[in-house]
């Protein structure tokens, strides 16, 4: 069974500090991983996907198959980064589904 673990429910940093939101996964196949974000009073939306290897809003995430991790990082946090972050794993084929972690609430303090 596939599983996504986000060990931190809450993460608080100061503006300008580096931030890392942890995500570990369990999946027997080749994983496809995503980070979704939910800002206050907004709907859940895609932040980035590992296959794109892109940086969005200064965030990056690298898939580490050896450690089965997909941590989200940003070198200098901004107050507007405060939000709920969900790591998600997509399985393939006829059993496709997107499995989410429980989320990490990031608070960036001024």
């Amino acid at each position, binding site marked *: 069974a596939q599983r996504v673990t986000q060990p931190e429910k809450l993460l608080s940093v100061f503006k300008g500090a580096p931030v890392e939101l942890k995500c570990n996964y369990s999946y027997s196949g080749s994983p496809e991983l995503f980070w979704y974000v939910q800002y206050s009073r907004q709907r859940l939306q895609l932040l980035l996907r590992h296959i794109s290897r892109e940086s969005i809003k200064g965030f990056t995430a690298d898939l580490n198959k050896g450690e089965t991790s997909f941590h989200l990082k940003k070198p200098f946090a901004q107050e507007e980064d405060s939000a709920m972050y969900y790591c998600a794993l997509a399985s393939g084929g006829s059993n496709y589904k997107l*499995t989410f972690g429980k989320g990490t609430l990031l608070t960036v303090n001024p």
Partner: protein
Amino acid sequence: EAGVTQSPTHLIKTRGQQATLRCSPISGHTSVYWYQQALGLGLQFLLWYDEGEERNRGNFPPRFSGRQFPNYSSELNVNALELEDSALYLCASSSLGYRNTEAFFGQGTRLTVV
């Protein structure tokens, strides 16, 4: 372009009743997904519909069911409501049920069972 829309935004039912939640996907999207977001449990996958057929379901009892209509909109039905069914129900849509496809989410329906 209109996003994924869900109705109603709030729903209050008593235990044992049935609830019907509705979702309209983004135009052109054929896949619809339903998730339950209960307090402390995160997003739990409920159902996936594509081209009018149920393709996959999560670990929920059969009283959670749904359907997808020819226009790709979808209904989620919850029968014999229990108190623990109280949660935010999110609908998402994508153009294809493929792994690399972005899922677009609605604002959700808050179901309260009393």
